[in-house]
C-alpha cells in the first residue's frame, strides 16, 4: 500500500536534468564546456547554481562578469519561480535534458528581478510562506513559530533536507479537526498564453454544502478557459510537479501534498502538445 507520505518524498526529490550552456555572445578566454546538473524541482535557480556560476566564470575575464541570469529558448527565467514550475510551464514538452542558456551580460531589467544574494531568495521564500499561511490559517501558525523554526524551513530548502524541512512544515499543513480543510487554498495558476503573470484568488477547499472542492471546481471557477470542454478534444494540460492530477482530485489533498515548499500550489496550464 502506498502512503501519502511517499508523495511528499517524491515531490521533494523531484530532479530535472539540466544542461547549462554559456550564451554564444559572451566573451570567453577559452571555450566554455556545457555544464550538467540535476536541479531540484522545488528549489530556486539562483539558489542551486553556484556550481554553474563558478564553472563558467573560470573561462571568463573578471570584467566581463556581472549578474548571472538564465534563459530558455529566448525567455528569461524568473528566479523567484520554483524550478519545477519554470520547467513545466516552458519546457515540459521538449526533450531532456533541459537546455538553459547562461548569461552574464545585458540583464533583462523589465523581465527579471535582481537577485543580489541568497538573502533575497530567503526573503522572497519566507514572504510566500507567510502569504500562504495567511490564506490557510490567518497567519496563526506561522506567527506562532519561533525564529529558529523559520530558519529551519529555509535551511531545509537550501540544504535539500527533506526531514528537516517537513519537521516544521507539517505544522503548516494542519487544520482544526472540526473543519475539513484550510480556510483558503494558496494557489497560483500560470499560463503561457496570457500576459498576466498568474491568477490568484480566494478559494475554499470545502463547498458550502460540505462537499470537498476539487481541482476541476477550482479551474471552472477561476480559469474556465483552462477546462477542456467535455465533448471537445483536450486542449490544455493542467500540470503540477510534472504530473497531471485528475480534475476530481480534492483540492485540500493537493494543497497538503503537492504544494511547493513555499506552501503554494503552482499550477501550470499549458497547451496540449501536438505530436
Amino acid at each position, binding site marked *: 500500500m502506498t*502512503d501519502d*507520505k511517499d508523495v511528499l518524498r*517524491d515531490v521533494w526529490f523531484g530532479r530535472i536534468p539540466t544542461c547549462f550552456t554559456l550564451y554564444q555572445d559572451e566573451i570567453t578566454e577559452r571555450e566554455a564546456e556545457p555544464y550538467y546538473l540535476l536541479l531540484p524541482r522545488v528549489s530556486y535557480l539562483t539558489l542551486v547554481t553556484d556550481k554553474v556560476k563558478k564553472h563558467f566564470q573560470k573561462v571568463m575575464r573578471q570584467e566581463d562578469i556581472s549578474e548571472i541570469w538564465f534563459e530558455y529558448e529566448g525567455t528569461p527565467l524568473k528566479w523567484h519561480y520554483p524550478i519545477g514550475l519554470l520547467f513545466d510551464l516552458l519546457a515540459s514538452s521538449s526533450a531532456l535534458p533541459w537546455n538553459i542558456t547562461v548569461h552574464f551580460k545585458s540583464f533583462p531589467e523589465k523581465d527579471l528581478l535582481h537577485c543580489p544574494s541568497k538573502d533575497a531568495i530567503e526573503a522572497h521564500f519566507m514572504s510566500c510562506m507567510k502569504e500562504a499561511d495567511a490564506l490557510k490559517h490567518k497567519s496563526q501558525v506561522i506567527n506562532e513559530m519561533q525564529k529558529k523554526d523559520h530558519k529551519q524551513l529555509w535551511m531545509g530548502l537550501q*540544504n535539500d533536507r527533506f526531514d528537516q524541512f517537513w519537521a516544521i512544515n507539517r505544522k503548516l499543513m494542519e487544520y*482544526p479537526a472540526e473543519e475539513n480543510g484550510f480556510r483558503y487554498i494558496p494557489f497560483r495558476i500560470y499560463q503561457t498564453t496570457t500576459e498576466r503573470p498568474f491568477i490568484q484568488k480566494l478559494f475554499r477547499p470545502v463547498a458550502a454544502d460540505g462537499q470537498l472542492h476539487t481541482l476541476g471546481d477550482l479551474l471552472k471557477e477561476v480559469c474556465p478557459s483552462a477546462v477542456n470542454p467535455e465533448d471537445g478534444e483536450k486542449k490544455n494540460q493542467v500540470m503540477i510537479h510534472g*504530473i497531471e*492530477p485528475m480534475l476530481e482530485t*480534492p483540492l485540500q489533498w493537493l494543497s497538503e501534498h503537492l504544494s511547493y515548499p513555499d506552501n503554494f500550489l503552482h499550477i501550470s496550464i499549458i497547451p496540449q502538445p501536438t505530436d
Partner: protein
Amino acid sequence: MPNSVLWAVDLFGRVYTLSTAGQYWELCKDSQLEFKRVSATTQCCWGIACDNQVYVYVCASDVPIRRREEAYENQRWNPVGGFCEKLLLSDRWAWSDVTGLQHRPLDGVALPSPHWEWESDWYVDENFGGEPTEKGGWTYAIDFPATYTRDKKWNSCVRRRKWIRYRRYKSRDIWAKIPSKDDPKELPDPFNDLSVGGWEITEEPVGRLSVWAVSLQGKVWYREDVSHSNPEGSSWSLLDTPGEVVQISCGPHDLLWATLWEGQALVREGINRSNPKGSSWSVVEPPGSENGVMHVSVGVSVVWAVTKDQKVWFRRGVNSHNPCGTSWIEMVGEMLMVNVGMNDQVWGIGCEDRAVYFRQGVTPSELSGKTWKAIVAARECDRSHSGSSSSLLSAGCFFGDEVRGSGESAPSDTDASSEVERPGPGQPLPAEPLDDSKNPTGSSASGPGAGRTAEETTEDACPAEGSRAAGPDTHPGPAPTPAELPWTNIDLKEPKKVPSHSAAGFPETSSLSSLGLLPLGLEEPYGVDDHPLWAWVSGGGCMVEACAMPRWFTVQAGLSPSVQTLSLSITPAQTAAWRKQIFQQLTERTKRELENFRHYEQAVEQSVWVKTGALQWWCDWKPHKWVDVRVALEQFTGHDGARDSILFIYYVVHEEKKYTHIFLNEVVALVPVLNETKHSFALYTPERTRQRWPVRLAATTEQDMNDWLALLSLSCCESRKVQGRPSPQAIWSITCKGDIFVSEPSPDLEAHEHPLPCDQMFWRQMGGHLRMVEANSQGVVWGIGYDHTAWVYTGGYGGGCFQGLASSTSNIYTQSDVKCVHIYENQRWNPVTGYTSRGLPTDRYMWSDASGLQECTKAGTKPPSLQWAWVSDWFVDFSVPGGTDQEGWQYASDFPASYHGSKTMKDFVRRRCWARKCKLVTSGPWLEVPPIAVRDVSIIPESPGAKRSGHSIALWAISDKGDVLCRLGVSALNPAGSSWLHVGTDQPFASISIGACYQVWAVARDGSAFYRGSVYPSQPAGDCWYHIPSPPRQRLKQVSVGQTSVYALDENGNLWYRQGITPSYPQGSSWEHVSNNVCRVSVGPLDQVWVIANKVQGSHSLSRGTVCHRTGVQPHEPKGHGWDYGIGGGWDHISVRANATRAPRSSSQEQEPSVLPEAHGPVCC
C-alpha cells in the same frame, strides 16, 4: 473507546438511542411499546411501559446468554442387579440436585420464562475435575454423601453422574416483559419509577445489577438475582420505607437515593457487596423548605437533584463513607429531570425546550461540571421524513454561553456562497414543507424512518402547531449574528432572557421555537426538523470522556453519514482513481526525468545536520546514577545516498570531559521505559542486548523525550532503510509497558544453519498501547488492550510519540487503555486489640506492594508512568486468588505465606488488596473491534507454500468471560471481520490457538487442554471438543500451535511439547518438558518456536521478559535443542506467527531425504 449509547424517551413514549459515535437519535429496534421511564446500563435497559409493566431490553451480542442446568442421577449397587436406580429408603432421590436434597427429574426442569429456549437435550458430563471419566461419566463413592472418584473400587456402593443441559436467553434486542405472575405476592399496584445500577458493587456473579422500582403507592421494591446470565432476575422483594417514595435512583456503585412525596430525599445506607440491598434509610432535607426535592439521580460519588421549582442542585461531599453528603449547591439552569451516567457524567431535560442537555466539563476533580450544552442531534427519521411540520429549529436548543454565537470559526467573512438569504422576522415561514422527492436521502432511507406509520406522523404535528400559533408575537426579530452554520442565524443569547415558566409542556416550547426564522430546505438536502421533545433520558450505558466528545453538539452539514463512519480496510479515498493516478504519474515522472541522468551531479551537496540537547544518562560505572549530559545527533549522508547518524553523549567524570558515542545503524531497539518519575528510554545495540545493559537516557519533559525518541527512531529506520508499514511477515512484540514493537524478519532468521542471532534483530516501535498482539502473514493483525478491548491493525504506522514523518497520514486513531494498580494493606493480630496496622518491627510495610518489599500507600502510589491518569478512587479488590472474606481480607499464619479467604485459629496476619483504575490515551494504527471484550486471540498462520484460497481467514478468540468465539468474514481486505460465532463450551476458557491446518487447541480455566475436532474452512467452528489432560500436577495457561507443532505453557512457567501428533491422531499422546522460566510462547507457521523467558543472564545484569528463539528446530527434531537470546528486559509478548519466510535452501538441506512421517501435520497441508 467503545461506542456506547444514551437512551431517551420522547413525549410520545418512543424510545430512542444516540450512539457516542453517531449523530442521530435512532428509534429503538423494538418500537411496538410506548414507555414512561427507562434506565440503561451498557448491556441492557430496563423500562416501565405505558401499560405499567416492567420490561427489560437486553442488547444483542454475538455471545449468547446461556445458563447451565444440572441434575444428578444417583444409583446404588445391590448384589442382584448391580448398580440400579433402586435406592434405599434413607437415600436421596434417584434424580436430584448436587446436594441430593432436592428431587430433580430431567423432565421436571422447566424454562423460567418464555424468553428462554433450550439449546440442546440433556447429556452426560464426561469430564470430572479436569479428567475424562470412563463408562458414561459415573463417579463412585462408598455412600451418599461422600467423596466421589473416577475409579470403581471394591467398596464403591453408590455412584452418580451429572447431566447437563443448556438454556439460552432468546429475547434480545426486544423488550421482554418481566413476568409478574410467578411472584408469590401478586404486586399490589403498578410501578411508577425504576432505576438500575450497582454494577460496580461486585462482579459476582458476572454482570450483576441492582434493579430498584417504586410503585404508585410509594413502596420500594428490589429485583433479586439480576445478572448477565439471568437478565430478568427472579422475584421482587419489598423494602420498608419511612414514607411514600415517588422516585428512586441507584448509582453504579453503592449510592442509592430516593425522593419522598413530602419533598425530602431518602438515602440508603449499608449497601456493600455482601448486602446490595443495604440496611437502613436516612433522610436528607431538601435545599429549601418551600420547594421539596422532586427528582434525584446519583452516580459513583455525586448526587444531583431537581426541586419542585425546577432548580438543579448538586450535593456536596457525597462518597461511600458519607452517602448523605454535606450540603446543597444550586446550579445554573432549569431542568425537568437530570440523570447521572457513567463516569459521573450528567444529562438533563431542559424545562423550557425539553431538549436533552449534557453537562460539560465534568471531571473527577470538578464533578459539578461547567455548563449545560444541548444535544442537537436530529432523529434518524427526521433525515428522511421531513414531516408535516414546517421545520423550526428551536432556539431553545442553544442556550448557555458555550454555544459560541461568534463567527470566528465560521465562514462568514468573504465567502458569499455561504450566506443564506434571511427573511425578516415577521415574514411567514415557507409554506410548503419539504418535498420528499427532493430529498436525496429520502429514497435511500429505510428502517425506522421509512417504517413509520401515519399515526406517528400526526403526532409529530402537534408541537409544531403550537409553535406556529404562538410564534411570531412572543419574540420580535432576533438580531441575526453569524452562527456556526448558515441556517442557525439566531441570537443565541436571547433565550436566556426569556422568563422561565413554572410548568413544562408545549406552551413554553413553542414560545421559543419560533425564534428560528429560517429559510429552509433550499440548499440543505434535508430540513432541520423541529427538535424532538424529550420526557426522559438515561445515561447509565453511555460512556463520554472529555478527550473524545461525541459529535452531538453541532448540526452536521451535508456530509453523508457513510462518509463519516470509519471503515477499516481501505477507505474509499485511498482507492480513489485520482490518488492512484498521482502515485503512478509521480513514479513515471521520476523515471522519465531521472533514470537516464543519474550520472549528473546533484545541484545541492548533502551536508551534516546536527541536533543537540541536554538529557540525563544512567551512567555505566558504579555507583549507578543519573548524570546530566549533553547529547548531539549528527546525521550525514554517504556517497551512496545512504543516511547515517552518530549519537554523541558528552559527560564529565572527575572534572574531566569525556564522550561516548553510538552508531545509530547499530541500534536494535529504542524502548520507552516504565518510570513513574522520569521520561526515560533505553537504547540497545546487539552488544548492549547481550550485556542486558542498555544505554538509558532521560529527558526533562515528555515532549522532549518524544522528540528525541522520534528523531532517533527515524534515524535508525533510515540507516536501515526501513520505513512505512511493517511487512505482512513482521514479528510483533509488546513490552510490559504496553508499547508495541515490530521487526522485519530477515530470510536467514529461521535458517537451519547459522540463523541470524536474534540480538541483531531491529525492533521499531508502533504507536498504540496493547497487552498482546497476534498476526498472520496476510497482514491481519489483532491486538488486545489491558482492558480486554480488541483492536485491529489499520495498515498505518506511527502514532503515539511518532508524529510527522515517522507516522502515516491516515489510519491513525485515538486509542485508550485502562488498567488497575494494586497495593496491599497488611495487618497483624495481637491479643489486646485484634488486627491492627501495627506490625512487628520485622514485618513488611503496613501498606505495600504484593511482595511486601516496597512501601505503597494510598496517597503515595502514583500511576505507573506519567502517561497514565487515575480514573477511579481506591477500592477493595475481592477477586484475588485464594478468595477473601466479606471485607476483602485474606488470612495467613505469617508474612509471606499463602493466603486464604477465611480466618482460622492459626492465622496471625491478614492482608487485603486495593485497586485503583488508571487510564492512558494515545494514538496508533488501531481500530476497535466492538463490542465484545476478549482475553486471547489467534489467527491462522499461513502454511508455507500453500496457495491462498478464497476462504476467509480463521480467527479464534476467548472473550473476557471465557466464551470461545470464532470470527467470521476476516480477510486481508477486511481484517476486522464481520461477526462473532459463539462456540459452546462446558466451562470458561483462557487461551486458544489455531494451527496452519485448522487444528484448534484451547486451554480451559481449570488448566486442562482441549482439541477442537473437524474445523474446516467450510465448517469454521468445528464440531466438538476433545479433552486433553494437562501434564501431571500442572495447570496449563497458554497453548500455541504452528504448522504441526503444539506447545503449551503451564502456570509454573514450564514449556511443554505435545508428542505423538499424527494425521490420524491429531490430539497427540503426551506432553514432553522443554524448558522452564517461560512466560509466553509463540509457534509460527514454520514450526519455529519463540518465547518470552525470565531470568536470562547477561554479562552485566539479569533480565526478565527476554525474547528467545529455539534453535535446532527441524522437521525431524521439532523440539529443537537450545535457545538464542534476543532483546529483553521487560518484554511481555511476542508473535512470530506471521513469519512464513523460509531461509533460502542451503546444500545441506537438499540432502535431507524426506521428512519423517510424524512430522507431517494432522491434516496434510
